[in-house]
């Protein structure tokens, strides 16, 4: 456990002394800010409209602002996650520092967990930026806070799964760009898989859309803690980290 923390701390330092972390945070803040402004603007517009018509329509901040916002965050994540994970192992392989880790009294699992945790912390700090926007909502509206917490939990779970997959892909190459591009491809694929459910209801289509990471986020966005979806993400996290461990081991036998 101590070693996991040592590796995690080192990775975090690497993120935050290089421009990577700040670039990601800034990009995320701008894009999220745009969505926030957009969605809130539409909400306010609808509110004014209903007032002008003179008939009060039921309006719900949770349903109409927070839910779409969280869904958007989960999609932005798909684009930013490759940039978080691409360097994790590829860079160590390129500079040869992997040899230091592999010849230190630290197990592969500890190295992998440390790196994955650091990626999680970076993602979580991106989410932290959104807290600022939600503070405004709480100041001027009266949403229920529980669905929001569950939404955040869902985001973390979803990101954990994608970060684990990205970590695995990063062990496959020395080249960060290749790792990043491949991870982006996989993330994208895991998103668009759900689109088949739009026109097809056969079993294969349901299986495919079930594999999409976004379908499983829907209930979290609504504020429902669904065990089924949480287990789906947990399984993906485990699978990603397990593959990473296998890949690390095969590195020794191949190199």
């Amino acid at each position, binding site marked *: 456990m101590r070693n996991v923390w040592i590796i995690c701390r080192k990775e975090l330092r690497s993120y935050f002394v*290089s421009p990577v972390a700040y670039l990601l945070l800034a990009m995320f803040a701008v894009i999220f800010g745009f969505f926030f402004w957009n969605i809130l603007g539409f909400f306010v517009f609808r509110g004014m409209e209903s007032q002008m018509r003179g008939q009060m329509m039921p309006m719900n901040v949770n349903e109409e602002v927070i839910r779409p916002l969280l869904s958007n965050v989960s999609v932005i994540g798909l684009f930013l996650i490759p940039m978080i994970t691409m360097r994790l192992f590829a860079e160590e392989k390129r500079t040869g520092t992997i040899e*230091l880790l592999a010849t230190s009294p630290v197990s592969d699992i500890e190295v992998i967990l440390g790196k994955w945790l650091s990626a999680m912390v970076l993602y979580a700090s991106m989410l932290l930026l959104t807290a600022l926007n939600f503070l405004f909502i709480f100041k001027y509206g009266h949403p229920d806070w529980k669905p929001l917490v569950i939404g955040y939990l869902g985001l973390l779970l979803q990101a954990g799964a994608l970060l684990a997959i990205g970590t695995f892909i990063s062990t496959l190459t020395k080249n960060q760009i290749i790792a990043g591009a491949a991870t982006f491809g996989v993330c994208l694929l895991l998103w668009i898989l759900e689109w088949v459910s739009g026109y097809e209801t056969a079993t294969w289509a349901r299986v495919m859309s079930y594999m999409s990471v976004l379908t499983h986020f829907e209930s979290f966005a609504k504020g429902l803690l669904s065990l089924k979806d949480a287990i789906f993400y947990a399984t993906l996290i485990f699978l990603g980290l397990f593959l990473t461990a296998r890949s690390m081991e095969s590195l020794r036998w191949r190199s």
Partner: protein
Amino acid sequence: MITVTDLTKRYARHTAVDHISFEVHKGQIVGFLGPNGAGKTTTMRMLTCFLPPTSGAATVAGFDVLEQSFEVKKRIGYLPETPPLYPEMRTAEYLQFVGSLKGLGKAELAKRVDYVCERCAILDVKDKLLGKLSKGYRQRVGLAQAIIHNPDVLILDEPTSGLDPKQINETRELIKGLAGDHTIILSTHILPEVEQTCEQVIIINKGKLVATDSVSNLQNRARGAETLLVEVGARNALVDPLKVQARLELVSGVSRVHLKNKREDRSTFEVESRKGLVRGDLARAVVEAGWNLNELRPTAVSLEEIFLQLTGEPAAAPAEEAVPAGVK
């Protein structure tokens, strides 16, 4: 301290290390000598538990590298060919990171960082970014990283490659100073390096063990036959190289004279001699015949020549035909 028995590493296409056995005792400095691609790095990687051996066994401080790799890793300091540095970290920060990875406690860590910085003469770059350090400093930080946890065994892969002569000397002195506290294996393809720093030599070529011997024995073997470079000239007259060659061949102890280079007023010969002490006789022979002795020096005994003597292979330089190790 280190026992290696029948250690073998096979890849799909070739065998990088082929049934190597040797032993290193506590406190020794051992040079691991061989041309590029001989299997030095692969052997070291197996000793440091980075690569698992295909067959055979190796123990470090009594622990098996495959079965008890955790114990081995605790007792080994390893400097790979390129120092494993994170360019975005500062020297002290990096050493702290490596130290804590190796299991040092907080109080001990600070002490050890100060100690290795002083020992490796990197105090003045303690707060610099590793990415900005010069090659010599990088190498020394690499060494500092290897000794941070005061390991029993130090394994250094070409610790002086790519350094300038002054840095090479400093590094060698540093390594020599580390002996005694640590058992050291260092790999190199430069013979003088072994002569200067090591007590014991292990020579491998194409994955096979060629010889293990003490340095002084090896030097004697190499000196048994010496190659001298002789340049003979004349002030005014032309020199007939054939005549000079004939005269040189007459000197006792000379086994072969080979005309290397011929100009109008001087010629260069390569003289192979059996005994070690023919230089004086050679010089007198030239001067007494009325020629000028422009130059007389032993050609550096190259690794190839040692291989030649030890293995009886044809003169082709093994370094050039050696199979690439495929470990990079």
